Every structure is written in structure tokens, then in C-alpha cells.
């Protein structure tokens, strides 16, 4: 039977670490899982532009403004790569955006927190991009070719994001008392949400089974979270920031840090729409999309007219 052969070919490729490509046969659930994950990733890049965009007009120096503009553009570019990767699975960007607006597709919870001071721009670059990198580096080895290649491109740009965020924090920690207070406050507000970015503990993670079997996900939530904590704690210490976790301590036996309890109640509330900015982020996106409709219509009307003119 043909179907069984396809599945076998697919499974053999997965086993031998050969990428699955767009034209290859793949199980429906594999396709569905990828669409969900890649679109969530794409939407996160795009929605993530909002908290950072919040400070473009108020960036405190011309250099800082240029860096922030460049960084946000990178994120939008990541959104484009990822929408294209999702499109290879047979779903269009319009439909993906519709799913986002209908609440069927999600984006990273982290962007439902507000960026209140300039230090938040530092904290986002350093902690949020820092956490994203850990995840994305791991996804460079994901089994779906277009997704894996998008990750390779994205990772090249991400380390600049983390560095510029850390530089903002370092400058502020070397500055006035007010700046140091601002930086520590941002650290206090972003640390725990950054840890939540890796998702629930491995023991409670609903999607892990198939994703691991199909090598979409290469490392577990807790493994990735641990990597992030271990590299970040020292960076904080170097510039004099305190990690807001009284239970954080070095574990000599496992050669990494133990950390305190994550507030999973908060995590669930934010996922369920009750974060400080869920409504604001989504209504901004919907508003821009609706207000832009006449422009998109005009562009397609014009290009249709041009095609007609050429063919005549």
C-alpha cells in the first residue's frame, strides 16, 4: 500500500536526520504541528515589535534610536521568513493573520508584558532575545527544512539583539542612581516572564510527545530553560544586577543553577488573555490590519490593471 510506504520513507528520513522538504510526503499531524508552531513563532516576531516600538520616538540618543530601529526591523524580517516557511506547508499569510485575530493562533506570552521604561528595552534585548536565541539555536536542527533554514538565518541576527540589550543595561548600571534603579526594576519585572518563555516543565508539557518523536523539537523545555539561566546569571553579576530569585543557587553536583518556583498561575492567566497587554497588542494589530485594507486593495487593483495593460 502506497500510504504505508510514504510513512516509512518519512520515518526513515527523520531517523537519519535528513530534512523533510515542502514537496515531501508528511503525516497530517506533522504538518499541523508545524503550521501551529511556525505561525506562532512568526506572530511572536511581529507582535514583539510593539513593546519595543513603544520606545522608538523616545530613545534617548540618536545612536540608541538607530540601533532600536534596526533591531525592530530585523524582527519584522524574521516574521517574513517565518510566514514564508509556513506558506510552504500550504497556508497563506492572510489565513494565518486571520487565525491570530480570531484567537486560534497564539504568540509568545512574553509580549503581553508592558515596556514601561527605557531599561525595558535593555531587558527585552538581553533577556527576551537571550531566551529566544537558546530556543532558536536548538531549532536550527529541527526536522523541517524550510523552518530549519529560517532559524539559521535568524540566529545570525539574534546575537546582535542580545548584545545591544545587554549594552543598554550595562550602561545604565554604570550610570546614575536613577538609572541603576530603572535597570534593576526592569530586571525584576522581566526575569520570571523570560523563564516562562520556555513553556511548562517537561512533566506537564502537552505537545512534547510527537514533536520530539518527529524531531521538530530537539531539546526539552527544562533543558533549554536551564541553559538560559546558566548563561544569564553570570552576565547579570558582571554588571551588578541582582536576579530576583532568593532560591537561585549554584548546584555543584549538576554544575548549574537551581532556581525557585515559577508562578504557573500567572503563566496560565496571561495565556488565557489576562496579561497586562493582551488586549492592547491584539487590538493594535487588528486596527492596523483593518485600516490598511484600502491600501492592500489599491495595490492589488493597480497590479491587476498593469497585468491587463501588458497583455493588451
Amino acid at each position, binding site marked *: 500500500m502506497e500510504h504505508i510506504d510514504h510513512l516509512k520513507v518519512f520515518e526513515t528520513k527523520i531517523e537519519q536526520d535528513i530534512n523533510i522538504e515542502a514537496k515531501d510526503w508528511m503525516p497530517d499531524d506533522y504538518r499541523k504541528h508545524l503550521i501551529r508552531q511556525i505561525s506562532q513563532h512568526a506572530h511572536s516576531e*511581529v507582535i514583539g*515589535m*510593539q513593546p519595543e*516600538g513603544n520606545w*522608538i*520616538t*523616545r530613545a*534617548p*540618543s*540618536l*545612536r*540608541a*534610536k*538607530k540601533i532600536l*530601529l*534596526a533591531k*525592530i*526591523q530585523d524582527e*519584522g*524580517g524574521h*516574521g*517574513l521568513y517565518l*510566514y514564508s516557511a509556513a506558506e510552504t506547508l500550504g497556508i497563506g499569510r492572510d489565513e494565518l493573520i486571520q487565525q491570530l485575530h480570531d484567537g486560534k493562533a497564539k504568540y509568545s506570552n512574553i509580549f503581553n508584558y508592558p515596556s514601561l521604561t*527605557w531599561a525595558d528595552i535593555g531587558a527585552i534585548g538581553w533577556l527576551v532575545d537571550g531566551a529566544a536565541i537558546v530556543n532558536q539555536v536548538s531549532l536550527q536542527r529541527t526536522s523541517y527544512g524550510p523552518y530549519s533554514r529560517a532559524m539559521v538565518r535568524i540566529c545570525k541576527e539574534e546575537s546582535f539583539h542580545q548584545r545591544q540589550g545587554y549594552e*543598554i543595561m550595562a*550602561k*545604565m548600571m554604570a*550610570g*546614575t542612581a*536613577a*538609572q541603576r534603579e530603572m535597570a534593576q526594576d526592569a530586571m525584576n519585572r522581566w526575569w520570571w516572564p523570560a523563564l516562562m518563555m520556555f513553556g511548562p516543565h517537561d512533566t506537564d508539557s502537552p505537545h512534547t510527545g510527537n514533536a520530539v518523536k518527529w524531531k521538530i523539537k530537539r531539546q526539552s523545555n527544562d533543558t533549554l530553560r536551564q541553559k538560559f539561566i546558566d548563561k544569564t546569571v553570570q552576565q547579570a553579576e558582571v554588571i551588578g544586577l541582582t536576579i530576583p530569585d532568593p532560591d537561585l543557587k549554584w548546584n555543584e553536583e549538576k554544575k548549574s543553577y537551581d532556581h525557585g518556583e515559577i508562578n504557573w498561575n500567572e503563566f496560565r492567566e496571561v495565556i488565557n488573555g489576562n496579561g497586562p497587554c493582551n488586549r492592547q497588542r491584539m487590538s*493594535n*494589530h487588528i*486596527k*492596523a490590519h483593518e*485600516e*490598511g*485594507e*484600502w*491600501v*492592500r*486593495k*489599491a*495595490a492589488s*487593483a*493597480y497590479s491587476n*490593471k498593469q497585468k491587463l495593460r501588458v497583455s493588451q
Partner: protein
Amino acid sequence: MTHQEALLTLTLRLGDDPLILGHRLGEWCSKAPILEEDLALTNMALDLIGRAEVILRYAAEVEGKGQTEDDLAYRRGERRFYNHLLVEQPNGNFANTIARQLFISAYESFYYTELMNSKDATLSAIAHKAIKEIKYHLKHASDWTIRLGDGTEESHHKMQEAINELWMYTGELFETDDIDEQMSESGIAPLPAELFGKWKSLMIDILSEAKLSLPDEGFMQTGSRQGVHTEYLGYILADMQYLQRAYPDAKW
């Protein structure tokens, strides 16, 4: 007016246009009709802030009081800003932003082409780099003007309205005063008035391809050459200068 004073005013005028327009374009972040345009508009903002930075750095050098480009951008009061009124106008809808960009980029394309031949080596070097960006901005704005003008009935109407609304800020681009005369005589900068003919014929070409009509000359707003602005500038500066003013001892 001494040569130095005239050159300082000229450089502030040249630096403030991209600074304020870059601010306005930055406001589009996460608000554009499609993601590609979000990137295009903020990319232009980035070009403009980069240009403002080098020109204001030069202005600070000409001034010779030990200020930096950031001091000039973040610590100057609104009556000492010399950007054209056009660039501080609000983004409005997408057509308003495109019309504003079309007018200013077309003007800059002629101004900076001349500025490349400036006897002032710094300005000439700045112009050589800027002209490439300006040509791209102009292409982007004229492509959209044509698409919207010749798109749907609604977009045609919106584009025409935007052109009509902003038209009264275009006269100022070609105002020419003693400072321009002095700079032109020294071979440093062109006379804006002399660029009007080329600018207008380009507008006629683009607007006719876009099936839009060119407004009558009509009444033209003025003031920015003397640092007299519309009410919008004060809010732009309140936003832009907030951190530097609130924490005067801080370095960012």
C-alpha cells in the same frame, strides 16, 4: 552674518529635516498596512536618523561650543528647530505619509544632487551618501503615489486629498533667504528657489501617471526658516527629548 553663523544655520536646517521626518516615520512601527511596508517605513526612518546624526554632528563642530549631535537633537528648544513645516505634519493615513514623502524626497533629490558639488568637503561627502537613500525614498513614494492614485476609487480619492492637504507646505521648500544666498555665493549649497522648476515638472510627471491632479499654487505656509513651527513640533520634541530632559545627568 558671519560665515560660521550662516553655515551653522544651514547645517541645522539640513539636520532637522531628517531628524523630524525620521521621528514621524518611526511612529509607523506596527501600524502599517502590511508587514513589508512597516519595514520599508522604519527603514527610511533609520536612513533619516543616520543622516540627521552626521549632519548635526557637523553642526555641533561648526558651532564650536563643545556640544554633541545628541545635545543639538535632545536639548534644543522648539524655536531653535529649523526643519520644514512639511516634515512635522502628522502621519495621517498612509496616503498622507506618502504625499509628504513624495514632496520632500523629490525636493531632496534635487537639493542633494547639487550639494554633492559643495565646496564644503563634509557636506559634499554627506550628500554623496545621502543621495542613494533619497533616490530610494523617492522611488518608494512615487511608486505608491501611482499605485494609490491609479488603484481603486477610494485610494484615488484619499491620495488626491493628501496631495491637496499638504500642498500648502511645499512653498516653503523653495524659500530662499540671506543665508542661502551667502552659502550659494561661497559654493557651499544650492539656492532652493532654483530647484523649483525641476521639482514641479517631476511632480507633474508623477501625478499625471498617477491620474491625480496638481493643485493650484495657492496660499503657502511659512515660518520654519525662522524657527516658527506648527503646534505639532512641540509634541514631537516632548516625546523625543523626554529622557534627556528628565535625567539631565544620565548618559545612555
